[in-house]
């Protein structure tokens, strides 16, 4: 039995390696943006940060009505309070996040060369806590959601600036793995992320219109009216994977962190506008 899984792992690794040699993230991003510009010539680039509301006018009116007094207001209060907490050693989050006064959300995820993996805002928060003697927070727990909501809010208006250094093969490999995830069909329904959020944007799946993949990571965490609470980007990933009837990966798993790395790089230049409100 182990032979089978090893064999597949090798195939995946080999594919990753072969393609990473040729990887050109900037060319990928330009093509990604150009695809949507060609598909929706009337939608200005910045509008993609608003997800489906860039496309669906009736839904947009309801969303704007909700944003006049957004339901995540209370979460932002909680987040601001948590942000200012002092750690046992007298340090604060601001000591871990340089430049946090004007916002850092736009720089995450980043490739952490010491840990040799993609560091998301959530894992960076936990690395910070661990460094200062505190246990990590639950990835989709209220505290983590409130902190990331606060950090996104402070970063509003900053253009997303993800770096995938072409001189760092490990960063490129992580980016390529995320890209492969995005375009790989999975689950009983045999859908890739791109089947819905690139190829079929604007069409309906049952009662929903499909939003564009460009701009997806700008506004998380998000208040979901359906749940009456906030969710993280990885929780949304998990929901999508489940929707195509595949077994979801863990929040902040390598797979999802790499996916976030790729997807956020695709949105470079769009403004951070989190936290958001969605149906």
């Amino acid at each position, binding site marked *: 039995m182990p032979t089978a899984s090893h064999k597949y792992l090798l195939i995946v690794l080999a594919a990753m390696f072969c393609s990473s040699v040729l990887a050109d993230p900037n060319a990928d991003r330009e093509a990604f943006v150009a695809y949507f510009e060609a598909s929706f010539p009337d939608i200005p680039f910045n509008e993609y940060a608003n997800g489906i509301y860039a496309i669906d006018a009736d839904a947009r009116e309801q969303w704007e009505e909700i*944003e006049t007094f957004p339901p995540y207001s209370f979460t932002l209060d909680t987040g601001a309070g948590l942000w200012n907490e002092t750690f046992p050693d007298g340090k604060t989050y601001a000591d871990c996040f340089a430049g946090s006064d004007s916002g850092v959300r736009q720089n995450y995820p980043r490739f952490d060369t010491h840990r040799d993996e993609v560091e998301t805002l959530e894992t960076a928060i936990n690395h910070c806590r661990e460094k200062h003697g505190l246990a990590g927070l639950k990835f989709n727990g209220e505290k983590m959601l409130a902190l990331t909501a606060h950090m996104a809010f402070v970063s509003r208006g900053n253009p997303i600036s993800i770096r995938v250094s072409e001189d760092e093969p490990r960063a490129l490999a992580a980016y390529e793995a995320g890209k492969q995830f995005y375009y790989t069909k999975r689950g009983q329904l045999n859908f890739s992320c791109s089947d819905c959020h690139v190829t079929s944007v604007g069409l309906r799946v049952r*009662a929903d219109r499909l939003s564009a993949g460009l701009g997806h990571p700008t506004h998380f965490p998000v208040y979901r009216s359906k749940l009456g609470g906030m969710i993280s980007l990885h929780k949304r990933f998990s929901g999508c994977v489940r929707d195509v009837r595949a077994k979801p990966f863990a929040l902040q798993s390598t797979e999802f962190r790499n996916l976030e790395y790729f997807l956020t790089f695709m949105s470079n230049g769009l403004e951070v506008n989190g936290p958001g409100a969605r149906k």
Partner: protein
Amino acid sequence: MQRTRRLIIKGGVALLALTALPRALIAAAWPQKTFALTTASEALKEYLGTDVTTPSDKIDMKVPEIAENGAVVPVTIKTSLENVESISIVVEHNPRPMAANFEIPPGTLPKISCRIKMGETSDVMAVVKTRTGVYSIAKEVKVTIGGCGG
């Protein structure tokens, strides 16, 4: 950056809190019975004394054609009718149709907005009681479920 934070209304107000003595301050009784009735007609009779309403184009109700989410349907009602005493929101197909009502004293503008729950596609009726009559307008709101976001 100020610009991009516009969605949070900062207003010009300071927020102050007091310790509570609230119950005494609630003047009018909560109309419990109208909220328990299971037909729009009964609920209106109970609350306004009549279920006969005059359709009026002086009432403007803004509701979505298709609700993004039945759990959060934004409703805005305003009217140019004079001497308004109350505004009610009635959702015909909800298990208990009377969703909310608002008592409008003189000096308060007859314009309210809130967010309501709808169990299924239904007519939503805005019922305005003035000193001289009961007026209404109705619009259908479609509630859909399913898909990946809902």
